[in-house]
């Protein structure tokens, strides 16, 4: 089979028309890591994505958006719970259930084991979900930082500790078009009724730029939305009551400018 045959198959694969022998053959070829076919597929995918635009946009029924937002609200916040330690429970051996005991005893033992098992399964699932969410959050932060670094016009602003927190330090990646990402290297963890709040200051006016916390080692990250109008002159972090404020009230812990 010459490579030309694969090039034909690559078009079909991009469009999703391959079936039978052709599909398995091409998948095997891709699995070998053919760079030419991988590039061809990416190019085709981009062209095909444009086909979506050949049709004029159609406003969907409002109920779809409502249903989605309700579903998201029902899902609850994507918070990362600290993983609870696995509680060691006594092992239940099958002979307990199956043994000499009267049948009703076996039945209740079975129910008990099942309930225990389900509880552990539920716990394991919650831990897996929490872990997955933590990984996803970290991944999102890493991608955001990479995106910012990749973009032209991104600067790094050093934020230094003010008198109230001389050891504090942080860096802020800033891009006028797409916003920024604050990377805190060292800040004191706060009690739950307090929060750190970031401010962008231009023309003497401070605008709130989001709340964040740090972990027990004093590190943290925070996505910052772009600021409309001109580029902020100063970035500052203050300590505020939980929930944040619209103008700074607490002590300034970090400050920096371009």
């Amino acid at each position, binding site marked *: 089979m010459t490579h030309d045959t694969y090039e034909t198959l690559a078009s079909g694969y991009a*469009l999703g*028309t391959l079936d039978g022998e052709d599909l398995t053959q091409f998948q095997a070829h891709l699995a070998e890591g053919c760079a030419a076919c991988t590039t061809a597929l990416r190019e085709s995918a981009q062209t095909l994505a444009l*086909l979506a635009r050949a*049709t004029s946009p*159609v*406003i969907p029924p409002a109920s*779809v958006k409502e*249903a989605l937002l309700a579903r998201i609200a029902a899902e609850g916040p994507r918070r990362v719970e600290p993983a609870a330690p696995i509680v060691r429970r006594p092992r239940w051996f099958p002979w307990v259930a199956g043994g000499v005991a009267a049948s009703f005893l076996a039945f209740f033992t079975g129910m008990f084991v099942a309930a225990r098992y389900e509880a552990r399964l539920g716990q394991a699932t919650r831990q897996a979900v929490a872990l997955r969410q933590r990984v996803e959050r970290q991944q999102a932060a890493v991608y955001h930082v990479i995106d910012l670094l990749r973009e032209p016009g991104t600067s790094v602003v050093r934020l230094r500790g003010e008198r109230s927190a001389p050891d504090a330090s942080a860096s802020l990646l800033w891009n006028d*078009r797409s916003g920024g990402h604050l990377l805190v290297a060292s800040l004191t963890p706060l009690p739950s009724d307090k929060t750190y709040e970031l401010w962008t200051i231009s023309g003497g006016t401070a605008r709130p730029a989001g709340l964040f916390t740090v972990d027990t080692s004093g590190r943290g990250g925070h996505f910052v939305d772009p600021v409309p109008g001109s580029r902020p002159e100063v970035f500052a972090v203050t300590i505020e009551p939980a929930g944040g404020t619209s103008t700074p009230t607490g002590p300034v812990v970090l400050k920096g400018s371009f």
Partner: protein
Amino acid sequence: MATAGDVLIRRMALGDSEAFAQFYDRYAALAFALILRIVRDRTDASEVLQDVFWETWQAAATYDTGRGTPEAWVAVRARARAIDRVRSLRRRSAVFVAPADEALTADTGSGGKPGEGLEDRRLVQSALTQLSDVQREVIELAYYDGLTQTEIAERTKQPVGTVKTRIRLGLARLREVVRRAE
């Protein structure tokens, strides 16, 4: 200043439902048009649309800007889920063929801001007209109807080999037209 689509996806990954609402507003009309064109029934299309955007909410953390624009990210999912739906309907009833309802997809000022995306739409439409009839037919049967090469061969009464060649040439031509216009 509007927040870029990729930034919205990053915020969605962190559970920002406001970012999701903005993301939906930006891409839903495009996705809905594509889904509607494929599944042809408004109720089915609405369900598919909901699945697609639920998927984007769930998968936001895995989005990689290096692999395509946010729009392509949504479009690929929209098409895939719509075709899944059509295929499952087809399986349920072998003789079922959805009637082509032009009124559903006609441009009646039904969506999007005026002028937005219009340039691209013209470009893609004109790119499609530059294909030969037989090339356009196979591309459309594949892209909008989700048919496999064997199914296209049966539908068009052509040998499978001919269908494969038309797909390759059609796609190459389309790529070339789009690239030249950029």
